[in-house]
């Protein structure tokens, strides 16, 4: 029987229930609509003990793509390392088709590292195994393996394979760089020690050389020696001078290499330098067996260190002398080429073979023995030439047509328009310019001595024998006459006597050029009326000193 309380409850309850049902229905319809409309990612399904999430494909896609496209190889393997899933990258690494890799066994690629591989699979995932997998074609693939068991129902281990071959290459490169750096360091050390040794050697050698030079000078002034002894003394003098030059070159090379060579650059005329150098060589008797030609154009001014440039010219000529047989020709030609001065040293000697040509300027490189080999060198001269020329901002080239065809060395130096230092130039006349008569019958000696005097700023006339000398003196009296004692016609003594007999004969300064090591001649010369004497080969400084001395004496 319905109570009065039930009736309204019935209707209300029905209504409430209706509302509740409608709400539930709407919820259910919404869920169905969402499912149908592809708006959901996953179902949450109540299993016996917990809720499981079942995802639809679209939600999974990013993770799947990530694994399929990552840089590492990835695989899921089971207990016996059967590959149940793998990505394309791993198939690439192992050079297998993907279809063969999946379903195959991973440990087939592990080689003799089976035990460590098993350990890795069984581990907690923190370990890494570096090894070389064997690809299908047998090539080793250096990789790093990481393995971690997945929390799935079935036993499944996720294997990540990182390709190390790039790293391998980089490591090898680093090792190579390291090795080369060590080699470079060793070489630099060796080079430095070599330079130190050369410098020390040069310094040490100077003392003995100085002692020998001193002793030789004593011998020169000790009076006449019998011919054999005199010859021996001359040999010692010449050779010790040669040694001294080699030592000086050695020290210079060391200085240039360690950057300690000092240059004092001045504007100077290149033809000046060449003349002086050639004259110096002539005085030392080194040009006696060759024909020297000088070809000059207008003066060429460069910025340079006079001493060092003389060294350059000297070394080039010495080199030409060494490799040109007696009677051969050495030409020194100066010309202007664009903005550069060009000095060419051309010889008619044995030439330079093509395989030696690129190395002539290298330190200690020498050619084969010269034809008249009296003096060996150290292979330093040309190196110094190149170094000094380069320090001057220039270059030096060499050309040769090969065996027997001579060689041409060309030095290029930048021209300068700077004027010569005031007061007539640093290298010119430290003594006032004089009118000089040079009496010498030996053609080459005469030419070279004339060059030397002209380089000093003197005006030089020449005579080749006694009679023409006296005629010249009478016709146009010079300030100074340099007279070789051994002359055709009548000798130098006679020239002096006849000169003094002239009306103004005593105004003229007369200097005898006596032979090497013949002190007895000096007394005779004084008796004949000479004011002084110079021993051949003539030293420029001695000449200046002598002239100054004579001047003082004559003022009295």
């Amino acid at each position, binding site marked *: 029987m319905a109570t009065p309380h039930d009736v309204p409850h019935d209707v209300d309850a029905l209504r409430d229930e209706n509302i509740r049902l409608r709400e539930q229905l709407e919820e259910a319809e919404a869920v169905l609509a969402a499912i149908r409309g592809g708006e959901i990612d996953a179902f949450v399904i109540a299993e016996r003990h917990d809720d499981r999430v079942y995802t639809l494909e679209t939600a999974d896609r990013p993770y799947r793509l990530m*694994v399929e496209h990552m840089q590492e190889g990835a695989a899921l393997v089971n207990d016996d390392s059967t590959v*149940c899933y793998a990505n394309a990258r791993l198939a690439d690494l192992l050079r297998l088709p993907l*279809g063969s890799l*999946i379903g195959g066994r991973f440990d087939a690629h592990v080689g003799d590292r089976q035990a460590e591989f098993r350990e890795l699979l069984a581990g907690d995932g923190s370990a890494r195994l570096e090894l070389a997998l064997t690809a299908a074609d047998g090539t080793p693939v250096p990789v790093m393996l990481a393995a971690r068991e997945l929390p799935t129902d*079935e036993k499944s281990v996720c294997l990540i394979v990182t390709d190390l071959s790039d790293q391998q290459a980089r490591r090898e490169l680093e090792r190579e760089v390291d090795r080369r750096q060590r080699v470079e360091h060793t070489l630099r050390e060796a080079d430095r020690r070599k330079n130190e040794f050369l410098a020390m050697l040069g310094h040490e050698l100077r003392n003995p050389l100085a002692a020998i030079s001193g002793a030789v000078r004593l011998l020169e002034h000790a009076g006449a020696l019998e011919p054999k002894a005199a010859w021996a003394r001359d040999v010692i003098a010449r050779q010790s001078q040669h040694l001294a030059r080699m030592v000086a070159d050695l020290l210079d090379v060391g200085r240039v290499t360690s950057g300690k060579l000092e240059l004092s650059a001045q504007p100077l005329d290149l033809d000046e330098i060449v003349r002086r150098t050639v004259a110096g060589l002539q005085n030392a008797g080194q040009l006696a067996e060759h024909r020297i030609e000088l070809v000059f154009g207008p003066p060429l001014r460069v910025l340079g260190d006079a001493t060092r440039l003389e060294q350059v010219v000297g070394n080039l000529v010495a080199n030409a002398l060494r490799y040109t047989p007696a009677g051969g020709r050495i030409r020194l030609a100066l010309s202007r080429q664009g903005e550069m001065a060009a000095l060419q040293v051309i010889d008619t000697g044995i030439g330079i073979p093509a395989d030696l040509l690129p190395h002539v300027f290298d330190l200690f490189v020498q050619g084969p023995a010269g034809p008249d080999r009296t003096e060996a060198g150290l292979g330093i001269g040309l190196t110094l030439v190149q170094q000094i020329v380069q320090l001057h901002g220039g270059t030096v080239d060499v050309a040769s047509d090969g065996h027997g065809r001579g060689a041409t060395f060309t030095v290029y130096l930048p021209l300068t328009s700077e004027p010569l230092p005031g007061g007539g130039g640093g290298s010119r006349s430290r003594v006032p310019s004089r009118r000089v008569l040079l009496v010498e019958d030996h053609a080459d000696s005469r030419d070279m001595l004339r060059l030397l005097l002209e380089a000093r700023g003197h005006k030089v006339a020449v005579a080749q024998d006694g009679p023409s000398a006296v005629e010249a003196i009478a016709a146009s009296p010079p300030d100074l006459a340099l007279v070789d004692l051994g002359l055709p016609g009548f000798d130098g003594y006679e020239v002096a006597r006849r000169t003094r007999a002239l009306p103004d004969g005593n105004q003229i300064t007369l200097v005898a050029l006596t032979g090497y090591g013949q002190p007895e001649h000096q007394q005779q010369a004084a008796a004949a009326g000479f004011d002084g004497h110079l021993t051949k080969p003539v030293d420029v400084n001695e000449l200046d000193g002598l002239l100054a001395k004579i001047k003082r004496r004559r003022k009295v």
Partner: protein
Amino acid sequence: MGRAIDDSYDVTEGAPAYQLHLFVTGASPRSLAAVAGVKALCEELLPGRYDLVVTDVYQEPELARRQHLVVTPTFVKHAPPPVRSLVGDVTNRGRLIAALGLSPEP
């Protein structure tokens, strides 16, 4: 051995007698189980006499298209003839033996 990864399997001299193909979808549990199960069975029943190619239809979809697949997993025996296939639970021992054309076990 010239074995092409497509459905024209060549049975040249020296190629294994059984040419088998399994289609799966990535690393789903069913797929992993299918690979492991089929492989294990083949090793047991046909050691050294089979070639098994596994195609992940996510990574190599064009191979699936050629095969006219409807569902995965699907297992196909291409050789020796006749061609037989198995879908769904491919790890079922009895069904797989039948698909391989081997005599049922007692």
